[in-house]
């Protein structure tokens, strides 16, 4: 019967889900953090129960139809209506829900617990990028979090504009970033790597291009990164880049962007002190390369229409210098 096949088909698609979700790039079922791992565990339990429930109930539905189609008059005997309702509608669901409740309580209890040793990072949701600060070190960056593997981490999330939501599927669930109410996301990363995160709460015209990256490194590497970046970057060595620094100060750039240790102290746009070392540009809109940086500066509204960065009129020469300067900032 085609119906049987359809039920099998649904199960097959489910299996495909699992396969895809398991090996896909940034799947929440390929966890790299404590919270994502706990939740993935809860998911597999629920998935097993769900498969069971779906198949059993669907078989009953299809079976009832097949039985009912063969018959000429309603059946008087057999399983009573009450038995169906009690067993299928009440007892079995209650048992399954009980299991799920236990899983819920168990998983919830393990997550987001405060830890006084935690590394604290302040993240602010902006329109439409992420500002990142490491309190006590002076480090400021944007759209990329360097975090150590294995240490408890506490991300403090604030906003002075609209609501955003902080989500790195491979590390954990979402935490909303709400104006007037700091929220905390507490977790541990279990494996080094580069993990993509996004803004998950609709926040306006460029909500779609508000991604960020978490760069999880061994504690040693992280400490070295932190120590190196606590100091402002050194003067550009390269001649072209040095000229770029001057252009950067001269034209509109410095009004909105900061490069620590220079006169550029604007705060409307992302801090660019280490922009050359980042994985992506413009909050995940473009890959980070000299070519795409050039295209971006030349016409930001083409790649991110509605973003707050205006198109600054620059000669091709100036553009080249600025790109050289910015790519040198690591």
């Amino acid at each position, binding site marked *: 019967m085609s119906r049987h096949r359809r039920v099998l088909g649904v199960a097959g698609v489910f299996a495909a889900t699992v396969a895809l979700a398991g090996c*896909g790039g940034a799947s929440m079922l390929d966890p790299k953090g404590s919270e994502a791992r706990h939740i993935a565990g809860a998911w597999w339990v629920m998935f097993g129960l769900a498969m069971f429930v779906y198949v059993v109930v669907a078989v009953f539905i299809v079976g009832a139809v097949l039985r009912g189609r063969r018959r000429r008059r309603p059946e008087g005997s057999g399983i009573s209506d009450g038995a169906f309702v009690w067993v299928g509608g009440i007892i079995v669901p209650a048992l399954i829900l009980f299991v799920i409740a236990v899983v819920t309580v168990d998983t919830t209890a393990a997550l987001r617990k405060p830890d006084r040793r935690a590394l604290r990072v302040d993240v602010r949701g902006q329109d439409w990028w992420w500002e990142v600060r490491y309190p006590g070190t002076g480090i400021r960056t944007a759209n990329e979090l360097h975090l150590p593997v294995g240490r408890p981490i506490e991300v403090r999330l604030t906003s002075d504009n609209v609501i955003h939501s902080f989500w790195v599927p491979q590390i954990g669930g979402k935490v909303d970033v709400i104006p007037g109410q700091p929220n905390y996301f507490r977790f541990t990363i279990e494996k080094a790597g580069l993990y993509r995160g996004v803004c998950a709460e609709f926040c306006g015209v460029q909500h779609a291009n508000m991604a960020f990256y978490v760069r999880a490194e061994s504690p040693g590497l992280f400490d070295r990164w932190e120590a190196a970046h606590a100091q402002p970057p050194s003067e550009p060595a390269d001649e072209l880049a040095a000229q770029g620094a001057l252009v950067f100060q001269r034209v509109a750039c410095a009004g909105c962007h900061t490069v620590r240790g220079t006169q550029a102290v604007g705060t409307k746009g992302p801090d660019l002190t280490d922009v050359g070392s980042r994985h992506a540009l413009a909050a995940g809109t473009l890959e980070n390369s000299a070519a795409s940086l050039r295209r971006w500066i030349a016409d930001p509204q083409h790649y991110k229409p509605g973003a707050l960065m205006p198109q600054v009129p620059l000669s091709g020469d100036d553009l080249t210098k600025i790109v050289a300067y910015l790519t040198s900032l690591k």
Partner: protein
Amino acid sequence: MATITRPEIVDDVLSDERLEEIWKDPPGFIGFLKTVDHKRIGIRYIYTAFVFFFASGLLALVMRLQLAGPNMGVLSPEAYNEFFTMHGTSMIFLFNTPVLAGFGNYLLPMQIGTRDMAFPRLNAFSYWVFVFAGIFLYASFLVGSPPNGGWFAYTPLTDRVYSAGQNLDFWGLAVVFIGISTTVGAVNFLVTTIKLRAPGMTLNRLPVFVWSMLVFSFMVVFSVPVVTTAAGLLELDRLFGTQFFVPALGGSTLLYQHLFWFWGHPEVYILFVPAQGMVSMIVPVFSRRALAGYVWVVASLVAIGFISFGVWVHHMFATGIPPLAISFFSAVGLVIAIPSGIQFFAWIATMWKGVVELTTPMLFALGFMLIFLLGGITGVMVSVLPFDWQVTDSYFVVAHFHYVLNGAVVFPIFGAVYYWMPKMIGRMLSERLGKASFWTMFVGFNLAFFPMHILGFLGMPRRVYTYQSGLGWDALNLLATIGAFVFAFGVLLSLVNFVWARWRGAPAPPNPWQADTLEWMTASPTPEYNFAQIPVVESRHPLWDQDPMPVSESGGDPETRALGREGAARKETPLTSGMRAEPAGAMTVPEPTYLPFVLALGIAVLVAGLLVQAVLIGVLGLVLGAVGLVRWTWRTAETP
């Protein structure tokens, strides 16, 4: 007019033709504006709602084109945001809710065996308010500023600072405006069921659909005022500078979310309960037996109504509310699965021992079950607090609520269209085309929405106008787009089927499906007065158990005067006592009137005045509304 004496009328002056003369509306457009006939209004509700269904469906198709591949340029980001906001808003406010109210309007008086609603003019009024609110909302496209803050319009994104244009004013005012329609409609359903049931139609004999409309109405009465508060305070913030949701001055953005979801969560069940009621009408008829566990099913609907008020924080798990406080809502979210489980197995038991006939309405009911089963399961999953942290605001949730709101509400509605349309238009729809439409919709639906679960796992957030390639999202999105168009084609087949049947279909007999409830007692289409003589109900399945169906005569006393043809000839319908449904008086069905239209127009003008901040227009609306209202109450005094 020529005087033609027709012999059969001389014999019996209160013949059906004569009653029709008495009850019928003025001809043409005047009758269109003045009618208070619950059937005309109900059908019109359904047609109008479907216009909005097609409009917001088209918006969805364009959005799916934009998402068919990475970095597509079909829509600008602004347009995409406007499209998804309008899609969600009009599906919820202008299709799902009104179409169910339309079926309620059409069916409820007939299923309880009376001649109209308790407040026929109020009924017309709630229709006009719905139409004006819909036109108002869509007029935003004409002035180029449709709402763009998402269908739940979270502050502060939607306050004046971040949304300066009129976009959100259209949204906020429309929500308040249409709330009037929904609320007034619910009052009407409640009073009609309390006061107007046919003699013998006791509570334990009410059709399940009537029960579901009762639950619908109770939920509306207790939840809609709260969304009116949310949207109203938002508009006060926007138009008059109050500070309810401005954090810097003591306002709270979470307050808005609490108010919105206190309605928003029950709203899901407001839509869903009547849809379940429809399925509980269709399944027994095509299983040729009574619904298994009637009492259980009714109790489940009532339980859903209550429990759904304890689940709103469900939508706010990621807002940083302490887990301990949320776990209560997590638990309630799980518990609500039980009433649904009961209904599932009641339907299964019904078919298990019945004689199943796979007509188009039955196919839609079965498709609903297979889809809702999945939507219900993912519903349990999202009420698991930590899992919700992962999937909320992702495409997993988009998949989940489309399985619930499209699969579990729209499929039953299509089933209901195929089931009741013969009664409404007096012609049969094509079964072949209907089945083709069902299978196309079913396949297209799953193709469109199933992949979205996986997209959620892969980290795709909801409400993005585009995405980068290389994230593993491309193929699944393309699949979803193809599915959406397949689904739309299936819907188109049903539209063709309807248009064909409306003018060419075979005439429908009074009871084409051998169904059990009172609406099938009447001719197809039902005459204006519904029942010349009010039926006497002695069973939960009158048309199955009572053959021939007994009808009542008018008595000389005030209690029974409206029951028979004489009552119908005076345009009366009987009142019955609350619990036992014994004859207890009569009400007069009012004549067709412009008043509902005028009052609704007055409110529409007032709302438009608020939008453009023009005092004069606002005052004009107020005056128009006040005149309509005063005139209305005056008439009431004459014909109480």
